[in-house]
């Protein structure tokens, strides 16, 4: 191809710029880390504490990310309203938990007292997601790709502000659960009971989900539909039903994540779904979107990075109050992954399998 000098220069600028970004970010991380470590502000127990916190946070991201990834795998669509489904789950659980708490059920039977709100949140979130799919997504399944994305943004707004209308703009405090107070100290590292619960619950949920997707008939059908809708339909799979159950399953995970999130942060409001939603999407992209184990890995990586990042490399760079820039780390990771490795960490495997 014949290219002019100017065009070649432009190409050069573009590649140079991209490499510049890579090197700059790498340098920032390396220098920041070296400076911080050499200063020795934090003890190793503190670092482990950061990691534990990050893992708990990451487990929640991973649970939400599953919904993004599953829907994307089947419909090639970003379910922008998924973060708000997470919020609906938290609200549902809040009311059940408050009620159980006032009648004293939680103190008598802490296990069921935790489980019932989670189950309720999962059912509520699944129901709302199915409703959203039916109204806002299904009629647009064959439209140009921007159209369902806009509709999803609309659905996200609608859910947020419908809940604001129902429950007001204020913050609700999730009822305290006595059985979860305190923690254990292992090797000088304090681990809170809530964190253990969150990680354990998330692991169980993901195991269940993995089992459903890999070893049940519905899961097999889901995988078939994500390979090719038309072929799956020819094989006698009810594509609509499978898509709905994918939404429901992903939403149930998000609903449970909503409860875990409110157990950790003790606070819910109508806008709480937005940031975790975007982060979870980052996690899904990080792991390779459309890939279920990828979402889990991506969630954990993002959670840990976000948790240790501000202290590890931002503080070393001399940035005051680095935790303010926690979200910047997440967004930067998102942009970097999209730029340099859109297939994600585990994406390669998936694309090879499909080929």
């Amino acid at each position, binding site marked *: 191809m014949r290219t002019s000098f100017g065009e070649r220069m432009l190409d050069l600028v*573009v590649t140079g710029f991209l490499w510049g970004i890579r090197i700059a970010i790498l340098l920032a991380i390396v220098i920041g880390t070296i400076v911080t470590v050499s200063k020795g502000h934090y003890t190793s127990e503190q670092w482990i504490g950061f990691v534990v916190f990050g893992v708990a946070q990451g487990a929640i991201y991973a649970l939400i990310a599953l919904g993004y990834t599953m829907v994307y795998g089947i419909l090639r669509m970003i379910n922008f309203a998924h973060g708000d489904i997470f919020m609906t789950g938290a609200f549902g659980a809040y009311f059940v938990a408050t009620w159980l708490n006032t009648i004293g059920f939680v103190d008598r039977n802490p296990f069921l007292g935790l489980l019932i709100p989670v189950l309720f949140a999962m059912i509520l979130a699944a129901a709302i997601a199915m409703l959203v799919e039916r109204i806002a997504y299904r009629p647009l399944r064959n439209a140009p790709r921007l159209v369902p994305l806009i509709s999803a943004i609309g659905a996200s*707004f609608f859910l947020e502000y419908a809940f604001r209308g*129902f429950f007001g703009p204020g913050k609700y405090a999730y009822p305290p659960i006595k059985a979860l107070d305190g923690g254990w100290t292992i090797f000088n590292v304090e681990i809170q009971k809530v964190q253990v619960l969150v990680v354990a619950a998330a692991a169980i949920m993901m195991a269940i989900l993995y089992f459903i997707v890999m070893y049940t008939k519905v899961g097999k059908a889901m995988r078939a539909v994500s390979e090719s809708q038309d072929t799956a339909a020819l094989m006698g799979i009810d594509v609509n039903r499978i898509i709905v159950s994918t939404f429901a399953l992903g939403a149930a995970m998000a609903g449970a994540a909503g409860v875990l999130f409110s157990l950790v942060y003790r606070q819910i409001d109508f806008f709480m779904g937005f940031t975790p939603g975007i982060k979870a999407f*980052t996690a899904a992209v990080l792991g390779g979107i459309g890939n279920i184990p990828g979402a889990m890995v991506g969630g954990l990586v993002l959670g840990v990075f976000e948790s240790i990042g501000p202290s590890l490399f931002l503080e070393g760079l001399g940035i005051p109050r680095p935790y303010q820039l926690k979200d*910047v780390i997440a967004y930067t990771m998102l*942009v970097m992954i999209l*730029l340099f490795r859109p297939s994600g960490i585990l994406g390669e495997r998936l694309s090879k399998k499909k080929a």
Partner: protein
Amino acid sequence: MNEITKENFLWSALKIGLLGGAIALFICLIGMTEIFSKRAVIEKVITLGQFVLLAISVSCGLIAARRTSQLLRSPSAFSGLTAGLVAGLTVGLVLALFILAGDKINFRAVFLNASPALYKVLTFEKGIGGAWILPAAGAISGLLGAAFPLIPTSVRRPLFHAVLFLFFMALFSGLFRVVIINQGEKGEKIAKYLFGQTGMTVPGASIFFVLVGAISAFWSAFGKQIKTSASNLPKGGKIGLRVVAIVIIGIIALGLPRVSGPFIAQVIVIVALYILMGLGLNVTLGFAGLLDLGFVAFYAIGAYTVGLLTSYGPFGMQHISFWAAVPIAVLVAMCAGFVLGLPVLGVRGDYLAIATLGFGEIVRLLAGSDFLINYFGGPQGVIGIQKPCIGVLEAFTKIDVPRMCRGIELKDPQDIYYLAIFSAILIAFVSWRLRESRLGRAWMAIREDEDVAEALGINLIQTKLLAYMLGAAMAGLGGAIFATLIGSIFASSMQLIVSINVVALIIVGGMGSIPGVIVGAIALIGLPELLREVSEFRYLLYGAVLIIMMLVKPEGLWPSQAAKRELHHLDAEAGTEL
């Protein structure tokens, strides 16, 4: 159609009624009914809240009657009316059941708005004994809705227009009242005759009703004749007509802020700023098809540049005049478009949307963080931005003392109005010329198919970068005017919601269409700003409007010709990247 698949028409009417009831209940529980019932459509006759609920049951009746005529092989007026009655009655019954249940169970423990005030509104202040009124009103209004198609068209259309106009007037009655009162003593008399404190008066409503009905009837009778006679005019006459129209619009535009007062002027300025941003995004998204969800970043960059260059506050760096700062702001925004555009060149479709969203958030978080507090003021923002001055600007003396302006200072929203309107018109013209240019065609080629465009010899990198840069420049101009309008900028006013507003207004107006941007900005930004009752539910309605637009009219309110063609062959487009 197959006979077996048809359902009983009464059953379908019941389902429609249940759906309507659910919607009505939803409206009650989010608190709309309560807030709306403080406003009247016609004073002492009907409140806005009642009007909305009535509108639901009327439309349920109408839809049920329509459905019936499709379901029955030999539809009769009677069966249609029965269906309407059933549907309307069901809507009323759902609400009545809610009231009866609410008497026993405390819904308020969960739903904030299930308050005594809501029950009072729903039972017409008659207590639990008033629950029967709702089903009765529902049944009657459902019947009315069902009867609507039976009226001959010549009456039906004026009636519909008149009711619609009444609703519109009621929404804006407070605004009209103030504007007319401002016109002096005579105005005050007229205003008090037509409008009360909360809505229209009975005589006012009847005057509007008759007037609009008459105009509509006249137009449906003679409209065609007028149109043909206008198009039969000689060429000079047609141009003359157009010139007259433009002059009238121009006079209105020039005089409006003086007549309407600062509030409406401010709303118009904000609309104009969104038009600027919308036109900018229209270049990147509408023309070149690159979805940018972080567009607010460029707006912020324009605003911060002007702020830092002109501010007399602690963060002012240069103390130059607004007029010198604007071109710099536009240039800086353009460079930012280049820098942000470079990395995302290879990213396509949905991924691009999310990547740009990430950028927008990064810019906002950085600007508001303590990290850069010495430059951007952190959460406290940049304050004390110099207003534009036509004339001689005195030299900067010391911090926190505004510089004197010898000449005309554009102080109030009413003055900045002219600046904003002029910029919007200028940029609209620029983007119109851009669209017709070679570059514009290259953008549209990229939008339709990148690979084909490249094969046709379009340099993708260059063309896409130009789309980013020009779009960013327009948004930067908007930001610059915003900075001087508000007089201070905070990172917290650069939320993602602004970006989404801009995307939404382009989509609602019609992608790639310049008048569409203007229509979209007025509909999505202007109307909610003017309607304080609605502003509480602004984003709720927003979400609903976005979904409904996508379902019903994905090409937008005022689509460009190409988009119209395209979306009417959706199936052929199914697999393409947009």
